């Protein structure tokens, strides 16, 4: 079983994960978020938050998200448009970690690149979660 996110130390490097933005999944995502703007653009471009969402989903293959985790903030740079069907790789590390009153405060930096190693997206998520949370989600 992968470790719980709250247990990871500062500097922890997540194993890189490759994922594919399958047209089916992109359609499911666009429907879920009701994005009416992306379809106006030419080509089968993917909303940038879809890339971020699938990147985080891939990372969670390697660390369990504790129940009750809360997203506090998000910095993100979009570097290259991507289309449905593209294969991407996300790498990430725990950039900061602190504990206060039973809660872990964590910053996770992530970088997404395409098959040619061209950067697609970079970002940093600030999360808080109960320390020593049981189970996972």
């Amino acid at each position: 079983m992968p470790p719980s996110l709250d247990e990871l130390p500062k500097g922890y490097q997540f194993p890189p994960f490759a994922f594919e933005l399958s047209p089916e999944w992109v359609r499911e995502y666009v429907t879920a978020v009701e994005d009416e703007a992306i379809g106006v653009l030419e080509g089968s471009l993917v909303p940038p938050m879809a890339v971020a969402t699938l990147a985080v989903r891939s990372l969670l293959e390697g660390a369990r998200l504790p129940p009750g985790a809360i997203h506090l903030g998000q910095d993100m740079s979009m570097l290259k448009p991507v289309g449905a069907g593209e294969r991407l790789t996300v790498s990430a590390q725990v950039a900061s970690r602190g504990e206060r009153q039973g809660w872990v405060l964590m910053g996770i930096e992530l970088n997404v690149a395409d098959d040619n190693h061209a950067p697609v997206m970079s970002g940093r998520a600030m999360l808080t979660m109960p320390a020593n949370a049981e189970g996972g989600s």
Partner: protein
Amino acid sequence: MTLDVGADLAPVVKEITQEKINRYAQAGGDGNPLHTDPQFAAKTMFGGTIAHGMLILAYLSEMMTAAFGEDWLSGGRLKVRFKAPSRPGDTVTSAGRVLRIEDGRTVCAVECRSQRDEVLVAGEADCPRTGACLGPTEVTV
């Protein structure tokens, strides 16, 4: 066309329902019970389920895509903080205003507010100023 300082971006308005939260959880593979399990969420500081932060950011990103087109996808930057949770039953309005033009980029203040006028998300987003922005289009779902 380009957006000048003081221009408002066309807002994006979305209704939050538990069904939509569940649909996003399914797509995003985020089964955190804070979002999907009313019994679990009732015991937390929030007293009930809340929407995923990334779902709310998808609405902000839709607003930026509508305003700036592919420039947002190829060079957009976003820096936001979550101020309050979005709950089922909320109407979330994403809004933005051009603050300044800086280093060839259009810098906007962006936020999401609930129907109670509570700020849910606040921060800045900026985009390369290529003159290719699509301009105002209002989206309401």
